[in-house]
C-alpha cells in the first residue's frame, strides 16, 4: 500500500526535476543562441578591422572566419546618400568607412587596388572568395585592351595566398586558363601577374558560349552587349569613357576609369534584395571616389595656394632669391590649385559619374592635375621623402 507521504515524494520529485530540467534547457538554449550571435558580431568586427588594415597598409591577407559560424545571409548594401558599404549578415550590419568591393564567400582573400592620380592615390579594399575571372575580349582595339589590362592590374594578386583569384580567356565555347607556360611551370590557372604578360591578339575572340561553373565570373568587351549571358559587358571606350552593361539589367552604366570596370566585374550580375551587386559596387565606388577625391582636391588646392603665398612672402621678404628654382614653384602651385578647384566642383555634383560630358571633363582635369603634380616633383618643389 502506497502511503500519502510516498505519493507526495513522487509528485514533489517530478515537479522539482521538471522545473530544473526546464531551467537548464531554457538557459542552455538562450546561452547557445547568444554565443552564436556574439560570435557573428565578433566575426563581422574582425572582417571590418582586417578590411581597413588592408586598405590602409596595402598588405593583403586571407580571411576565413565566415566559415566558422553559419551565416544564412551575407551581402553588401550601399548606404544612401553617403555611399558607404555595409556588410549585412543575420545579426545586423557593419558599416565601413573605407571603399570595399565585396563578393560573399566562406573564405575570402582581401587585397587593395590603387588608382594613382599623381597628387593622390585612391584605394579600394577588395574581398573575394576563390574566383576565376574569365575575360571575353571580342573587341581588341588598343584602348579596350589597355583598359582590360588596367582593370586586371587592379584585381587582387593572390600569389602565395589561398583562396586564389585567377584569370582566363573565353573564346566561343573554349575557356583558356593557362597560356603556353606564361602562367608558371605547372600550367596552373593564371594569376594576375602572369595574365598581364599576355600580348594583345590581332583579332577579337568569339562571344563566350561556354557554361561557366560556380566561382567563375565573366567580363565581355564587345561593341554589342545585348546578348550577354552573365557578368558584365563593356563597350569599347572612347576618349577614356564608355558604357557598360550587366546581364539581366536594362540599365547602362557609364565608366570613366578601370576601377569602374573592376566594380562591375567583381559585383557582376549577381542579384539579391539590394539589387544587382555590380550596379551597387559601381555606385559605391563613384560615391566614395566623389567624397574622398573631392575632399582631397579641395585640401590639396588650398595647400597649393598656401604654399604659393608662403613662397611669395619669402621672396618679398628677401629670404628667397626671385630667380631661384623654389621661387618658380609658386606659379606651378597656383596652376595646380586652379585645376584642383575644377575637380572639386565637378566631384561635388551627386550625379557627376552619370553624364558623359562631366566625366570627360573630369578625366581631362585629372590628367592635367597629374601632369602638373609631376612637374612640381620634377622641379624639386615636392621632394620625395
Amino acid at each position, binding site marked *: 500500500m502506497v502511503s500519502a507521504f510516498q505519493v507526495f515524494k513522487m509528485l514533489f520529485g517530478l515537479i522539482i526535476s521538471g522545473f530544473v530540467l526546464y531551467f537548464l534547457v531554457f538557459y542552455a538554449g538562450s546561452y547557445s543562441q547568444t554565443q552564436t550571435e556574439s560570435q557573428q558580431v565578433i566575426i563581422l568586427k574582425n572582417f571590418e578591422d582586417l578590411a*581597413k588594415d588592408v586598405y590602409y597598409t596595402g598588405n593583403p591577407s586571407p580571411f576565413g572566419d565566415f566559415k566558422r559560424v553559419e551565416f544564412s545571409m551575407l551581402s553588401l548594401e550601399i548606404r544612401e546618400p553617403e555611399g558607404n558599404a555595409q556588410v549585412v549578415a543575420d545579426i545586423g550590419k557593419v558599416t565601413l568607412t573605407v571603399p570595399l568591393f565585396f563578393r560573399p564567400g566562406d573564405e575570402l582573400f582581401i587585397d587593395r587596388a590603387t588608382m594613382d592620380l599623381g597628387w593622390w592615390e585612391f584605394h579600394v579594399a577588395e574581398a573575394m572568395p576563390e574566383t576565376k575571372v574569365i575575360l571575353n575580349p571580342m573587341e581588341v582595339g588598343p584602348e579596350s585592351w589597355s583598359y582590360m589590362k588596367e582593370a586586371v592590374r587592379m584585381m587582387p594578386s593572390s600569389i602565395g595566398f589561398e583562396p586564389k583569384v585567377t584569370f582566363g580567356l573565353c573564346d566561343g565555347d573554349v575557356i583558356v586558363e593557362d597560356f603556353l607556360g606564361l602562367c608558371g611551370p605547372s600550367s596552373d590557372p593564371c594569376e594576375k601577374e602572369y595574365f598581364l604578360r599576355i600580348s594583345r591578339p590581332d583579332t577579337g575572340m568569339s562571344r563566350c558560349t561556354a557554361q561557366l561553373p560556380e566561382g567563375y565570373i565573366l567580363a565581355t568587351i564587345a561593341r554589342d552587349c545585348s546578348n550577354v549571358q552573365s557578368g558584365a559587358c563593356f563597350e569599347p571606350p572612347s576618349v577614356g569613357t564608355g558604357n557598360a552593361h550587366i546581364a539581366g539589367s536594362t540599365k547602362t552604366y557609364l565608366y570613366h576609369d578601370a576601377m569602374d570596370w573592376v566594380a562591375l566585374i567583381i559585383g557582376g550580375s549577381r542579384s539579391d534584395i539590394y539589387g544587382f551587386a555590380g550596379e551597387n559596387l559601381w555606385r559605391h565606388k563613384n560615391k566614395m571616389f566623389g567624397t574622398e577625391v573631392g575632399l582631397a582636391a579641395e585640401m590639396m588646392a588650398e595647400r597649393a595656394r598656401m604654399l604659393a603665398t608662403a613662397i611669395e612672402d619669402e621672396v618679398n621678404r628677401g629670404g628667397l*632669391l626671385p630667380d631661384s628654382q623654389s621661387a618658380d614653384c609658386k606659379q606651378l602651385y597656383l596652376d595646380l590649385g586652379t585645376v584642383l578647384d575644377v575637380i572639386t566642383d565637378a566631384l561635388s555634383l551627386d550625379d557627376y559619374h552619370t553624364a558623359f560630358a562631366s566625366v570627360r571633363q573630369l578625366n581631362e582635369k585629372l590628367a592635367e592635375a597629374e601632369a602638373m603634380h609631376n612637374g612640381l616633383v620634377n622641379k624639386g618643389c615636392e621632394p620625395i621623402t
Partner: protein
Amino acid sequence: MKTKKLAGQMGIMEYMLMTVFIMVIIVMLVFFFSGWQISQTQMQGSRVKSENLLSNLKNVMYSPLFIRDDSMFDDAKLTALQGKCEKVKEVLGADVFIEVKTLEKVAEIPCDPHRYDINCNYWSICRRDAPHSALVMPVNVYRNMGNVLASGILGRVDLAIVKVGVYESQ
C-alpha cells in the same frame, strides 16, 4: 500511530527545506550567470572601445589626407584641413578628432587654417570641449618650408605628438 504521523510530517518538512535550498541555489546560479554575462559584456564593450580608438589612430597615421609618408604628417595638409571638419568626418567617421603638436617649442602656437606659418606648432581638426577618450603617439611632421635659404627651400622634419580621440556619445 501518532509517531508515524510525526515521522511523515518530519519527512515533509525535510523536503520543504530541501526545496528551499534548491530554490536558493537556482536563484544564486541565475544571479551568478547573469552577473558573469553582464561583466563579460562590459569587458567586451571596453575592449571594443579601445580597439576603436586604436583603429582610428591607425587610420589617421596611414591616411594620405594627413600624411606625406607613413607616420609623417604634412604641415600644409594639416593646416588646410583645420577648417574642413565636416568633410573630414565623412571620411574618418563622426565623433573623431585629431590634434598634432610639435615638440620643438613648449608654448602652443595654434596654426591659422587659411595661412601657412612655419612658426605655428599646433593643429586641431574637429576638436571641441567635450568628454572623450583618446590615444597619443609620437610622430614626425614634415615642415614644407622648414629651412628657407636664398637659393631654395628645404623641408624639415620635426618630432610631434598626435592625439586621436573619439567623443563619448551623449
